């Protein structure tokens, strides 16, 4: 049985079986909990240092460029020249193709 499932490199079926088993075990622990617990009315609201959440839903959702801001900011010395290199000028597109062609030509001529 195991042989059939794990015949090659890996088996998604076995993976999903393990996932389902894990979920069952988790549900078992969950069902051991206290059923008398009541959900509070604040469930799902964001916690902002104990302040009341803003009325406008737009202010709750942090999105767009703010996600991974720290990561991209830390890498700005690498990313900014890269972004600047994508000029959008048609001449540059052709330029890159010609340059690559020349470099590949040299590479192929020397090494192959």
């Amino acid at each position: 049985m195991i042989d059939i499932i794990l015949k090659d490199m890996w088996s998604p079926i076995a993976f999903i079986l393990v996932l389902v088993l894990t979920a069952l075990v988790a549900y078992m622990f969950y069902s051991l909990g206290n059923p008398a617990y009541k959900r509070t009315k604040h469930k799902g609201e964001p916690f902002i240092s104990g302040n009341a959440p803003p009325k406008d839903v737009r202010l709750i959702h942090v999105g767009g460029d703010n996600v991974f801001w720290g990561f991209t900011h830390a890498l700005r010395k690498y990313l900014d020249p890269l972004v600047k290199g994508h000029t959008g000028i048609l001449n540059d597109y052709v330029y890159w193709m010609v340059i690559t062609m020349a470099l590949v030509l040299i590479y192929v001529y020397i090494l192959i």
Partner: protein
Amino acid sequence: MNSLFYALPFVMVAVLIIMGLYTVLFKRNLIKMIMGVAIIQNGVNLFLVSLAYREGYVAPIWTSAPDVDMVLPTPHALTLTSIVIGVATTALMLSFVIMLKKHYGTTDSHETRRCKE
């Protein structure tokens, strides 16, 4: 001298392609850049035709042909196809430039870059 004479078309091919590439790389007007593409196109077509040429051979038309050798027929077929494709692509690109001019008001390649980064 003779070999130089036969090399002349290929020199011309190189000149045309380099001229076309220069135009495409360094001219900022989109119409001029398309002209550059057309020049490269002609260079490549000339290259194909020059490949087929053999001195003293006749055109490859079988109907009532004299009994002598013929030049290579395939490159001529290729060139014809390539010319037709070239007309289509040039027309399409020029029509794009017309629409671009309507919307952006310019044909400068350094100005027409709202898609970038």
